[in-house]
């Protein structure tokens, strides 16, 4: 797992949730590098290589995104919509990680191409299962 060569982008504005996410990954024994952006606009800048993310070598496109829904500026749904419209981002697996158990959020997220929908806090076991599945070499 350590040398999977995969990269996670975490889109999360709550410091505590960032801490719990990192801790859960660690407890699951997953040592995947994580890049962090703390709002929806930053996420878009990251994808587009704008501003502070101009250097693509330093800020490579992620393989997996963990996306909070309630974010400052652009919401998680807006980010999902953006990803869905960009062919270059189509290979990225998006996992929604939110505190909303609302059915309509779950439905909307899947409509916008999310691969998984997790309600916080994410248990290490769940993360392990999901990442294991996503990291299988694709056909």
């Amino acid at each position, binding site marked *: 797992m350590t040398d999977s060569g995969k990269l996670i982008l975490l889109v999360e504005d*709550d410091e*505590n*949730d960032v*801490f*719990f996410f990192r*801790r859960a990954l660690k407890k699951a024994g997953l040592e995947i590098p994580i890049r962090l952006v703390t709002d929806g606009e930053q996420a878009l800048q990251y994808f587009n290589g704008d501003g502070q993310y101009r250097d693509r070598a330093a800020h490579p496109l992620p393989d997996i995104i963990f996306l909070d829904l*309630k974010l400052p500026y652009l919401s998680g749904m807006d980010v999902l919509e953006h990803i869905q419209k960009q062919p270059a981002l189509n290979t990225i697996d998006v996992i929604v990680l*939110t*505190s*909303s*158990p*609302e*059915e309509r959020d779950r439905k909307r997220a899947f409509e916008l191409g999310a691969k998984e929908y997790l309600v*916080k*806090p994410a248990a290490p076991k769940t993360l392990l299962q999901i990442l294991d599945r996503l990291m299988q070499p694709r056909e």
Partner: protein
Amino acid sequence: MNVSELTQVENRDSWLAAIVESSDDAIITKDLNGIITSWNQGAQRIFGYSAEEVIGKPVAILIPPDRQNEEPGILARLRNGQRIDHYETVRQRKDGTLLDISLTVSPLRNAEGKVVGASKIARDISVRKQAQRALRESEERFRAVVDNIPQMAWTSTQSGDVTWYNRRWYEYTGTTFEQMKGRGWIAIHHPEHLERVVAKFDESLQTGRVWEDTFPIRGKDGKYRWFLSRAVPIRDSAGKIQLWFGTNTDVTEQREAREALARSHDDLEKRVTERTASLTEAIAQMEEFSYSVSHDLRAPVRAMQGYAQATLEDYGDILHDQGREYLNHIVRSAERMDRLVRDLLTYSRLARSELELQPVSLDRLVRDIVSHYPEMQQPKAEIITRGTLHSVIAHEPSLTQALSNLLSNAVKFVAPGVKPEVELYSEQQGARLRLWVHDNGIGIKPEYRGRLFGLFERIHNGKYYEGTGIGLAIVRKSVERMGGRVGMESNGKGSKFWIELPSAQTDS
């Protein structure tokens, strides 16, 4: 005169006599003093006297007392050799009844040409007079009626020229017949409507179909009022149109009432739209609020729980037992707080969401629910169904919510050391199906049953049984939103909760 001439004369006399006798009219002769000298069969039929009774009597016996003064005048004219033609008067029968007659009186002259008497031909015209009287009375009644109805009325010729208006017409319009006759009525029509009104009226005149139209007519005060106008053709026995009879009924108030009603209807719709918009906005705000609550309120709780848990995991070994116990309290309290918030959200969502109802199989639903909860499965618990549970009309997510809560209660509230056993069965109750959930739990005291389905009501001690006090409120709210009912019975051996919903069976 020879025999043959005499015979001829006799023949002619008897021929004339036969004509006189066979006449329907009364043919009477009298002398210049008014004494009756001859009396035919017709006279007998009309007046009731026989010839024997009246010949030699004054003709005055045929004259009613109030007309006795007519006779001297008649006699005076006769003496002057004048005729009286078709003089309509009244005479009296033998029985005293009066009759209308038309009288023709001619002077009778002798061979020298001197007037010696008179012949009277009296024709009974009482039937015709009666008919005339009846017609006049009928017309008077008609006038009385049409002059006193609240409508305006008129008659027109087949070419649309008005020949008569009732009194109401003149009262309302302040016009005269001279101004209004023919097509004079055009002058008091509203210019914006006139062309249409005339065209439609002319069309009816041509086709002979009943005319009906609504338009304004100017009153004498210069103001227009609206009239519903109708005219029907009056035909003779051959079917030819003799005249048109029309009426105009003032419908201004009805129109105004209708318009006011339409306005108030529009106002009402506008208000409903506005109210709906503000409600929709309120609901949207409520949704926004709920969303914020679910996210923002739960975030710090989750953090407390998470850090307490992390502290226990990472530093548990350097803490005293009591320190660890405190952290466990924080974790449990935070978990409880989180569950409370989630349950409250569920409850408030239930109260306002729109539910689409469709048939739901209870057997499948129970299997699905049990498969999601390890605590409802062997070996921890046993949930069995007796017979087929059938289907109900419900909103599946809401019913899942309700039934999950009931089943999780059923396996939770048991005495320590007892394995929960729950039996499910259903019974048809008319058009409804009642699903029973019978457990072997600790039961509920009768005095607490009234509070059972209330919000935040907890019947059992939280020290032994976890709960937020919202579960059964959710059950009731969701079932009621689907048009159903909930209830419970307890006979000391566990509790029997039931949910009643419209049955999906159509043939039972």
